[in-house]
């Protein structure tokens, strides 16, 4: 599964960058993500990700690590396992922020794998859900930072 999106934001890069580090606010932008907890500031977090596809409900406690943090650049690695469904989720999210008209441009690139019996759903279903999640994230992010 791979999703890449670019969004133009009215807010300047400093404000977007600040918002990206406002963990409760960011978590609220990710559909199905709850119970975020800071383990080590700016390094390690935990959260629960819940998704429902038709009759199948997935709930994964995620361990999230910030693997790269540079000016305007952020890479997160997340992994977790739904013990009930014996499904493993691995995800890598790259965020790149730069100044652009009207304020800034954020590039989101998510790559991930869902392992286990859940694969029976088919790669296309998982790919489409990932696209919906990234699109909804960018929509909510834009609303959260006011443009």
């Amino acid at each position, binding site marked *: 599964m791979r999703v890449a999106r670019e969004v133009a934001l009215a807010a300047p890069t400093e404000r977007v960058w600040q918002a990206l580090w406002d963990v409760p606010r960011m978590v609220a932008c990710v559909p199905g993500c709850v119970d975020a907890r800071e383990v080590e500031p700016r390094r390690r977090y935990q959260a629960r990700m819940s998704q429902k596809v038709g*009759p199948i409900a997935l709930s994964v406690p995620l361990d999230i690590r910030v693997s790269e943090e540079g000016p305007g650049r952020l890479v997160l690695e997340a992994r977790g396992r739904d013990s009930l469904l014996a499904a493993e989720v691995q995800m890598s999210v790259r965020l790149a922020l730069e100044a652009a008209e009207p304020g800034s441009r954020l590039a989101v690139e998510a790559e991930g794998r869902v392992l286990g019996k859940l694969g029976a759903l088919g790669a296309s279903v998982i790919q489409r859900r990932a696209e919906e999640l990234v699109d909804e994230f960018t929509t909510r992010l834009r609303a959260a930072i006011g443009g």
Partner: protein
Amino acid sequence: MLRAFELHRPASVAEASSLLAARPDAALYAGGTELLLLMKAGLVRPADVIDLKRIPDLDALADGADALAIGATVTHRTLERSPVVRARWPLVAGVAAHVANVRVRNVGTVGGNLAFADPHSDLATLFLVFDATVDLASAAGARELPLGDFVRGPYETARRPDEVLTAVRLRAWPARPVGAYVKFGLHERPTLGLALALTLDRDDRVTAARLAVGCVSPAPHRVEAAERALVGQPLGALTDEFAGLAAAAVDPVDDLHGGADYKRELTRVFARRALTAAVTRAEGRTPDARYPHAIVV
């Protein structure tokens, strides 16, 4: 392995709906060919299962002057063998005869197939060219929805948690119809399903066309641009412009059935083949073209 659950056997749709209203996480059982696979795999673990198969009349087939009403618990096998369906709705009987395998057809139901909304459903694609609607019932009342609005995406429908799908209604085509359904696949579930229906005037000119494509987009859908390209054309002069329009309208992604480009090309090729089959039928002959890993109905 199946885990323990409580089995409910309502005797009416109203009873089923009130059971559902009280237990929103209950699973509806109408044949189990999809549900039991998920339950055995442990992907779905319902505490309650509501068996719809004992509700009288839910397995009725009613052929009216201009519509066929198929009850939710009618099996594929019943549809395939019904003398009325074979005589008046041959495409429906023919496609039913090729759903999955005979074990699935014997117990799998039309309502279960549509409500599960597997993106590789043959019926959900075929029924679109019959302008199908589904009947949904709950304690709050009954409603009818176009099939295209009911199936929202992979495994997702517009059915509310307390609603039961009770029937699907197919509309008869106007005079002089010809149709074809083609499916292709190397797996248990098809990689592509494509239904084409044409109606012709006395001069063999296409007066109406319907094309539905399934399996290659998130949900089966009609392709109106391709339909428009056929209308008004004489049967003998049909080009494959419409096949290109069909291919342009699908929204495939890469998976084990193949890459997105491959699926788009498959759509183009099989749209043309469906047209060949329909034209052959219009000329009074039986389509006899054979394609590897494909079924022409």
